[in-house]
């Protein structure tokens, strides 16, 4: 097999001497082994945070959203900030699995499974916020196009909030089936390794009885390609529509046409930061250093530089446009962001999102795990502040100076935000010990061409 020489331009994407069997072994090990103490400690902490969040959610439902820090002027604050933050985080998973598939980027294969899992859990966390903000959550089905009981008054298809209902539910369900379609063959690999009948039975149910015949694979490839093609415009539409929740309102600081591309770039930026945060820990804990290599980290950091720079340019464009518009309300909104009572959130956003990612221009920094981990946390924080700045600073000083006020979060606001972080990590930790965290059947297709000195089978 001399013609299958390793590409010299790129570094190998799989390190060490691997065989097909070795890949199955390495990816199944976390599922079959026992949890170590570090896992148990982290899982307990996440589960406790999640429980605290559930408690705060229950308190909100029981008492009403008056327990949040919202007031008459600031009617949207942490809830919508958290919603947009979580949805944005989800976007990296779809970018990696769909857009990089269409661009035939093979490095996506080691990270797409866990990034898609992150998407699903992030969208679950996101969806909790608008549903909770409804106050009477038992009426949540009113957002669906159903006739009401008094006559046939329908939902308003002119409203971006309703577009969001359609966008988020389509995004969630399509991401879920895309993820699961890819998981089916890998569950079959795990199933066929199991000696215990109970484990075999569970993984057989999960694998839907996959056998890996030629016809099944041929259809599998077609479905993956078409789902990637559908998910690509879908993911762009989701954050576009989220940005229209703001852009279609006549509020200074929101009413701008730059919002859709600026939000999409910001979403991918924050999503990649969260993927890095998770994967740098996961590769260490699950011993996947051979599969999620420094090269993967570096490539993701390059996407962070690109999207971070787009976000930086968008911030400056917004400032320029508000000055050039000549509209004094618009000008004041931005002046107030930078120098008003929320100046600290504006400058945190600027520092974390515009300055820190530029450090990745240095190869030493973007190939360093510790530096990447720290910067990814900075970006996560910065992108949370971005949404907070957009939402709260535009609202807290509205057209009528007598109603100017500040937003003060309560312990419930804090509890449900931290609670969703707990829910997210609890789900991700459960996923990492029960599901194949790397798309192993996909990875086997590239083993020969990108492995470092692949072991040839004996004949």
């Amino acid at each position, binding site marked *: 097999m001399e013609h299958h020489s390793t590409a010299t331009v790129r570094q190998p994407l799989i390190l060490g001497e691997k065989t097909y069997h070795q890949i199955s072994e390495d990816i199944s090990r976390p599922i079959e082994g026992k949890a170590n103490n570090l896992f148990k400690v982290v899982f307990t902490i996440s589960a406790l945070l999640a429980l605290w969040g559930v408690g705060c959610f229950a308190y909100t439902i029981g008492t009403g959203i008056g327990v949040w820090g919202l007031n008459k002027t600031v009617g949207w604050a942490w809830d919508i900030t958290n919603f947009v933050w979580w949805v944005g985080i989800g976007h990296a998973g779809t970018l990696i699995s769909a857009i990089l598939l269409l661009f035939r980027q093979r490095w996506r294969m080691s990270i797409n499974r866990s990034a898609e899992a992150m998407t699903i859990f992030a969208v679950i966390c996101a969806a909790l916020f608008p549903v909770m903000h409804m106050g009477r959550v038992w009426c949540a089905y009113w957002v669906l196009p159903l006739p009401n009981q008094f006559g046939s008054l329908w*939902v308003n298809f*002119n409203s971006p909030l309703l577009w969001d209902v359609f966008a988020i539910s389509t995004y969630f369900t399509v991401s879920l089936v895309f993820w699961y379609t890819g998981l089916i063959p890998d569950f*079959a690999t795990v199933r*066929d390794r199991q000696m215990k009948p109970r484990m075999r039975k569970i993984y057989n149910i999960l694998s839907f*009885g996959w056998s890996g015949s030629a016809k099944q694979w041929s259809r599998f490839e077609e479905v993956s390609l078409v*789902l990637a093609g*559908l998910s690509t415009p879908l993911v762009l539409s989701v954050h576009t529509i989220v940005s229209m929740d703001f852009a279609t309102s006549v509020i200074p600081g929101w009413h701008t046409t730059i919002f859709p591309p600026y939000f999409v770039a910001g979403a991918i930026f924050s999503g990649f930061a969260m993927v890095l945060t998770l994967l740098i820990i996961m590769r260490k804990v699950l011993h996947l250093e051979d599969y999620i290599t420094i090269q993967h980290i570096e490539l993701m950091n390059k996407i962070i530089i690109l999207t971070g720079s787009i976000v930086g340019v968008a911030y400056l464009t917004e400032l320029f446009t508000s000055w050039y518009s000549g509209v004094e309300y618009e000008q004041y909104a931005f002046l107030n962001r930078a120098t008003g009572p929320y100046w600290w959130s504006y400058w945190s956003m600027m520092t974390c999102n515009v300055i820190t990612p530029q450090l990745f221009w240095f190869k030493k920094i973007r190939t360093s795990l510790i530096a990447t981990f720290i910067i990814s946390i900075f970006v996560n924080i910065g992108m949370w502040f971005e949404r907070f700045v957009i939402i709260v600073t535009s609202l807290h000083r509205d057209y009528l100076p007598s109603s100017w006020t500040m937003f003060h979060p309560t312990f419930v606001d804090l509890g449900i935000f931290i609670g969703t972080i707990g829910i997210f990590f609890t789900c991700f930790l459960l996923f990492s010990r029960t599901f194949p965290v790397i798309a192993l059947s*996909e990875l086997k297709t590239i083993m020969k061409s990108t492995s470092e000195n692949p072991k040839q089978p004996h004949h």
Partner: protein
Amino acid sequence: MSKKVIYGVFDDEEVLLSSAKALRSKGVRIKDVFSPFPIHGLDPIIGIKPTRLSNAAFFYGMFGTSFAIWMTWYMLISDWPMNIGGKPNFSWFENMPAFIPVTFELTVFCAAHGMVLSYLLVNKLYPGRKPHNPDLRSTDDKFIMEIQSSENKRVTEDEILSTLRNTGAIEINHKDLK
């Protein structure tokens, strides 16, 4: 005559491909191949036609578009026209720009879910189904070619076996079907 199935086990997908070519050139019909990942270039050799699932997805998508157009027209133009922010509500076309997001989402929704459901249906995949890969190693690192002797009347079994052996099969197994 008893029906016999021959399983040729390979440990490399390229060896299997050249073996399949050699068998086909002798006129042997290959029933199926079980592999841990898709083998590119195998389908035309063993006679698998390209799947029509993407055509199906297109029609599911068109259904989604049509349904969304009908739904927005019926609910907001015909059944209960609402004047929202002074936007025109006399005809669907005048109100159409505001309906594009929902129409797009429903198109993607129907295309994606319709296609995946069809995929599960034609591949006969559902929770609780018994897998029918002949060898447990075929989802790990072995590639298994299935040949039914009853389908190959013109080629003797010995010829099939010797071709398999000469083209790199590491193991050959038999199974009798009743």
